[in-house]
């Protein structure tokens, strides 16, 4: 597809910073506004921008749809896994106090970090998947149309 030069250059400049900002929001969520939900959406927005400017195929060669689908489940599993881990350690489901045997507050820090990571992975993967599905449908419909016109 033909694209304009200025959006292409600007996107190339912006995307690394969008992804970096996503990571910042992810891991700085304990200290300022932010957290897994926002970080996931921002990270996905960076990928979606890439797909909009450079085409769906280019984006899918960077982040394959199968990988994203797996990540969708992985994030949820990380979250639930923390809960199971705390149960294994003899506490309640998602009781982070037990994650550090010396200091419950450190356990809380660790627990929040890990589950926020799980949230971020799932949300980013779901947003990218939804976008891939919509954009992929557009390509599919166009291909089918071209086929039916040709026949």
């Amino acid at each position, binding site marked *: 597809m033909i694209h304009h030069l200025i959006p292409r250059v600007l996107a190339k400049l912006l995307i690394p910073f969008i992804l970096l900002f996503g990571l910042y929001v992810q891991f700085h969520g304990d200290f300022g506004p932010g957290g897994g939900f926002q970080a996931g959406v921002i990270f996905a927005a960076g990928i979606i921008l890439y797909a909009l400017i450079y085409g769906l195929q280019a984006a899918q060669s960077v982040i394959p749809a199968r990988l994203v689908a797996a990540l969708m489940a992985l994030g949820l599993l990380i979250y639930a896994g923390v809960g199971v881990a705390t149960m294994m350690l003899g506490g309640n489901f998602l009781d982070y106090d037990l994650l550090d045997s010396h200091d419950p507050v450190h356990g809380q820090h660790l627990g929040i970090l890990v589950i926020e990571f799980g949230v971020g992975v799932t949300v980013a993967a779901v947003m990218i998947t939804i976008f891939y599905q919509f954009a992929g449908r557009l390509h599919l419909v166009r291909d089918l*149309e071209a086929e039916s016109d040709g026949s």
Partner: protein
Amino acid sequence: MNWEALIDIMLLALLLLVAIGIVRLRNLFAVVLLAGIYSLLMALVFTLLDAVDVAFTEAAVGAGVSTILSLGTLALIDSQREKIPSRFAFTPLLLSVATGALLIWGLSGMPEVGSPDAPAQLHVAPYYIEMTPVEIDVPNIVTAVLASYRGFDTLGEVAVVFTAGVGVMALLGSIPAVYSRGRRRRQPDAERADT
């Protein structure tokens, strides 16, 4: 003069204008863009009401991803204009006005916006605000409540997001059985022959 309140009123008035614009416009492209503006204004209101985390999410989700998805849908459904109905429907107008009036009447029993001694401020919130530095020790109380005090709740929300992703994959991932441009009717004979 309380500037916070003044800005609040102006932003809410703008929100109302945008919502009326969405009702009146028939061009779907304009409606979708106005919905994005609506979300952005809502994010500003949230910032003013001290909900910075919520404003952040609303700006990223409502004005960003949601608009992209709606535009993608418009590209797929290939129609830009809403059909003008043949006659004006009174029942929805009556019902929505009645609902709004009932709500305003009911909400007048609520404590005023921003009063520190409202019941909502006295129940569990003081516990979260006091105990977060002791029990969790992260500066952002919203994160502490979200991830720790109400971690089970958030797990459920993540599961809902996951399910929605799977749902969209199920709906849009399959190849349409028969595809033809324009209006297509299901053909009973062909369908029965299949079964």
